[in-house]
């Protein structure tokens, strides 16, 4: 595709090459990630094709097939059918079965719900990539955000000795608590990095463990719901919950007596969706980060410090302030990801909350090349794979690990983009290099 773009530029260089380059600039940026996804999916198809479990195929029988390879070739049509059904399953799990329209809203909503924390945590990592930092701590910041918000959402009324607080106070307080808790967990490694030079990769990994253990301790201790068999906190107060967009009314017997808010209440199962206002928050944050990075002096400082700290210092920018600020912002975004999961989706915090979301967000930021807008499709892709995996397994009996293999291959092809460039003969884009690895050399 890039060849097609370059060909006109070579043949008629005089006919305004600049505007066309600008118009399709995003395509140039997106071509490698898109081809990486395509290649990974194709390899995934080959894996499905070869590893279809025996119960979905005619059994290998020596008396019917002369050899194993005969059996392999005579089952080719069946294998093709199952391979295709793996991908149709993946699609219908993520976006609905289009022959049965009533399944579409639930599937779409599940994909968006799955993508919400990926968008927020992906943004968190992208911000630090821009600042030349490698925040492996999104997981810990996310857990601390979840913990902070659940503390306020479930226990705040009893601190003041009242039965309930109005939504106008309680919901913002819960959101803020999550954002602050995540932000503080991000500021710690940022400060250590700026003041002592302690590498943020090491400190954030360590802080992940601390966050996990702190969460475990609190959930098994003071924050445990004594009436529940599962290790979890009590259900949050209904006034602190992020509303679901459209859903059936909650059944209070399942939620500890709380009736959680919905923007629209329905009685139809088709529209009983889990999608919540967290997705709106996520899109707002995408806009905010794009604006911050591209339209404000602060964003310019972050990018300058990321690309060339010496130049930034020479220009009179505060390296310390920028590093701490970027890590704090990153932590706050990751904290918001955890918060939206707790007060929008699950309504309590379980000891098994640890999710790997924070680690997947590294992959998403890489796939999006740290571009805030591109985070959205990258996160949706990740969410769709995860949502569709179940239907894929029902259709084919293929191990659900296939999804993780495809994800890993995508990341491999992004990280080593020379492979993709070599396969598809794409020239290196100018100035498109990723700068986060600068800090490794120091």
């Amino acid at each position: 595709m890039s060849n097609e773009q370059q060909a006109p530029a070579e043949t008629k260089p005089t006919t305004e090459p600049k505007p066309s380059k600008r118009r399709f600039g995003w395509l140039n940026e997106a071509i490698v990630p898109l081809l990486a996804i395509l290649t990974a999916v194709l390899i995934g198809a080959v894996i499905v094709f070869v590893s279809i479990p025996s119960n979905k195929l005619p059994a290998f029988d020596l008396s019917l097939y002369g050899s194993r390879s005969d059996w392999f070739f005579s089952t080719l049509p069946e294998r093709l059918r199952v391979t295709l059904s793996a991908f149709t399953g993946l699609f219908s799990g993520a976006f609905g079965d289009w022959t049965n329209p009533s399944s579409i809203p639930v599937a779409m909503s599940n994909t968006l719900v799955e993508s919400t924390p990926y968008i927020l945590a992906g943004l968190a990592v992208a911000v630090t990539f821009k600042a030349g930092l490698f925040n492996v701590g999104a997981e810990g910041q996310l857990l601390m955000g979840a913990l902070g918000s659940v503390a306020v959402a479930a226990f705040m009324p009893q601190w003041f000795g009242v039965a309930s607080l109005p939504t106008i106070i309680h919901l913002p307080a819960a959101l803020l608590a999550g954002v602050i808790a995540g932000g503080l967990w991000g500021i710690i490694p940022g400060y250590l990095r700026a003041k002592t030079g302690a590498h943020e990769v090491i400190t954030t990994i360590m802080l992940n463990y601390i966050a996990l253990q702190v969460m475990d301790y609190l959930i098994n201790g003071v924050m445990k719901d004594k009436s529940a068999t599962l290790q979890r906190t009590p259900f949050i107060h209904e006034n602190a919950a992020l509303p679901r967009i459209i859903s059936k009314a909650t059944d209070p017997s399942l939620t500890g007596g709380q009736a959680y808010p919905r923007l629209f209440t329905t009685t139809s199962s088709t529209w009983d969706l889990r999608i919540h206002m967290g997705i709106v928050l996520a899109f707002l944050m995408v806009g905010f980060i794009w604006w911050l990075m591209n339209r404000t002096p602060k964003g310019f400082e972050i990018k300058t410090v990321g690309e060339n700290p010496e130049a930034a210092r020479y220009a009179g920018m505060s390296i310390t302030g920028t590093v701490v600020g970027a890590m704090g912002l990153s932590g706050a975004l990751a904290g918001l990801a955890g918060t939206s999961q707790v007060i929008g989706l699950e309504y309590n915090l379980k000891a098994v909350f640890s999710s790997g979301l924070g680690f997947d967000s590294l992959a998403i930021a890489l796939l999006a090349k740290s571009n805030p807008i591109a985070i959205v499709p990258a996160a949706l892709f990740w969410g769709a794979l995860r949502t569709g995996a179940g239907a894929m397994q029902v259709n084919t009996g293929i191990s659900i690990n296939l999804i993780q293999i495809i994800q890993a291959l995508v990341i491999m092809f992004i990280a080593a983009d020379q492979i993709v460039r070599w396969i598809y003969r794409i020239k290196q884009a100018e100035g498109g290099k990723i700068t986060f690895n600068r800090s490794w050399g120091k």
Partner: protein
Amino acid sequence: MNKRIIAFMMLLVLMVPVLAACGTETAATTAPAATATTAAAAPSATAATEPTAATEATAVATMAATAEATTGGGATSEIKIGLVTDVGKVDDGTFNQFAFEGLKRAETELGVKIDYIETIDPKDYEKNIEQFASQGYDLIIGVGFLMGDAIKAAAAKYPDLKFAIVDFAYEPALANVKGLVFSEDESAFIAGALAAMVSKSGKIGAVGGKEQVPAVKKFVLGYEAGAMYVNKDIVVSKVYIDSFTDPTAGGEAAKTQIAEGADVIFGAGGQTGSGAIKTAADNDVFVIGVDQDEYNTTFKKGPAPKLITSAMKRVDNAVFDVVKEVVDGKFQGGVYLGNAANGGIDYAPFHDAESALPADAKAKLDEIKKGLADGSIKTGVTLN
């Protein structure tokens, strides 16, 4: 252009060895490649003499299958059962696999249609259950204590569907959910008694998974009670590890116990426990498995001269029974308690360790099992 295609083909060719490695796992269990070809040559002669027999056999098989399908799907449509595993796989050697084996038996013996989803992440439980529920599966089985809330929510949302959950029971019971629970303490009691019989040092060890999970605690305390029943002076060292998926930590804990003099190790905690007994067996002490006969899973059918038994929970029988109830139209919500009395718990055969055990070990264990079944022996294990 051509180069590009060639390059891609080469990449695919590069993938082939990787995939071949995947394939040989199944091939190796039936026959190695070399023997397969010779075997293929030999039967071709016999196949030539009686080709009709082979085709006839398959014809009969397909006829039987279609007959079954038509009779089974006569009035009602085919019965569909969905299984959602806990985080893990249907062949991971834990209760996920055991539940799946029960389901596979139901597929062949009862002619039901089975499907499964392996859970990657605890927050997917709800979604995976929904996957089956929205397609109207007749019975949806969740594996594991951690799925308690998710099954409860799905059961409320789909009151017309039936659900079952392994290792969890609801208080009060739900009308359309059957909780499949087991007296782990009785199972471990028998194992603990055997441990006390073979221990020479008078010290034995147990490595458990997460202490907060009731099944784990009942296993470990039952093991202790059983050992004390045989030898009231025995010292039982108990360690809980905060993970079910950390074989290394399990192994380290077992080594510590061995260094302290323990000469029988009981591993009760998923892969963590399996790691503990594997390491302990390598260090030449006797070990006891859990949940299912670990001779077949962890020790890959031997040789395992150090594995004396496993404290078994017959999750497979429980799953099979609940599917049978659905097929027979006798399903009722409530609790199935697998214990010594109904064969829901048991101890595994001694396999390769038989010669190392006291001659009367089996008789004594059966006596204890009988005592547990008729109530004359009580494990005395209670969880706060």
